[in-house]
């Protein structure tokens, strides 16, 4: 720890206990935080947190395999999220605390204008997921949208 008091620089080398007494948080205490541990694992690549699975399954759209994701930490295309949905769901829970997205929902303009029934089905499915996740704020928002369209 380096302190400057009255233009005098003092450098102290403290153990964890002495540092804590002086109100300095050391790396050791921070490492005990669950979030810090989590961030450390993310820093090593989110793919490392994937549960062990068979790697022979490939995305039907881009051909990417889970092994590719383990090596690069990047998925190949949006369809990969459907192909590896089960494995990614667990990863999402570890990264974000939940796999259920809440808040703003993207609704394609074409669907809104051309096919209200399809849009309603999509919104109802999202409402069901929101209720299952006990995200009642999002559920209320979706309910209002459904009523508006109906």
């Amino acid at each position, binding site marked *: 720890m380096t302190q400057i008091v009255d233009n005098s620089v003092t450098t102290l080398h403290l153990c964890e206990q002495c540092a804590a007494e002086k109100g300095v948080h050391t790396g050791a205490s921070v490492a005990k935080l669950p979030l810090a541990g989590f961030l450390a694992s993310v820093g090593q690549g989110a793919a490392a947190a994937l549960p062990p699975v068979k790697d022979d399954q490939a995305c039907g759209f881009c051909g990417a395999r889970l092994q590719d994701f383990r090596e690069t930490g990047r998925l190949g*295309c949006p369809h990969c999220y459907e192909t590896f949905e089960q494995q990614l769901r667990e990863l999402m829970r570890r990264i974000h*605390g939940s*796999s259920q997205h809440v808040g703003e929902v993207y609704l394609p*303009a074409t669907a809104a204008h051309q096919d209200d029934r399809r849009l309603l089905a999509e919104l109802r499915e999202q409402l069901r997921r929101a209720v299952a996740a006990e995200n009642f704020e999002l559920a209320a928002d979706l309910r209002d949208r459904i009523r508006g369209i109906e």
Partner: protein
Amino acid sequence: MLDLDLLPDGGMSWLDASGPESSVVLSSRVRLARNLQGIAFTTRADDGELEATRDQIIGAARQAAVLEGAAEFRLDGLEPLERQLLHERHMISRDLAGLERGRTVRRGAALLTNGELGMMINEEDHLRLQSLRSGSDLTGAYAVLERLDTDLGRHLPLAFHPEFGYLTACPTNVGTGLRASVLIHLPGLVLTKRSRGPSRGSLRSGSRSAGSTARAARSSATSSSSPTRRPSASPRRNSWTT
């Protein structure tokens, strides 16, 4: 050839100290990551797909009112020094500039910007919308970004999953695709070598710091966030439930 005269203040208005709390907070940035449906992410797409993606996005962006008159820079046609200059002005990432070790600029990489508001095309994700403002103004930065996001959503088929949210190449960005950051000037802490303390403390508040300039970042959909916290930028904009 790079012509920065196309931009107000050469793209440096975020550094003019005109924003709130600018004696401490140099700038505020909010970005949203988006991808198009039916196209491989940029790291897996071929050159033809990357160029088609760029053209499709620019075509849609030209219809967005908030980007009216924006300048277009095709990075795959610029010299390394010119790309470096755009990166140093915080307008593009190192990845988009092709400055990462062993990498070169990606085909179809482009920047569309009016200075404070812009989009990186064919970065890690097809689209990285970003708003950069002077001082501490995350709310203002997000507000204009949300308008751009809404406008683009009307013209582009965005990749969205009902459970996961907006889909991105890296799962740490999935969900909102939002990251908010502020560039803070903390010379006293650096001189006394105590900058690591607040950096670590920020972990507990759902933030993280990065770089010697102590840029503290907050995000609703990445590792740096507290899952139950909502970003203050907007009550509508999300987070993840626990």
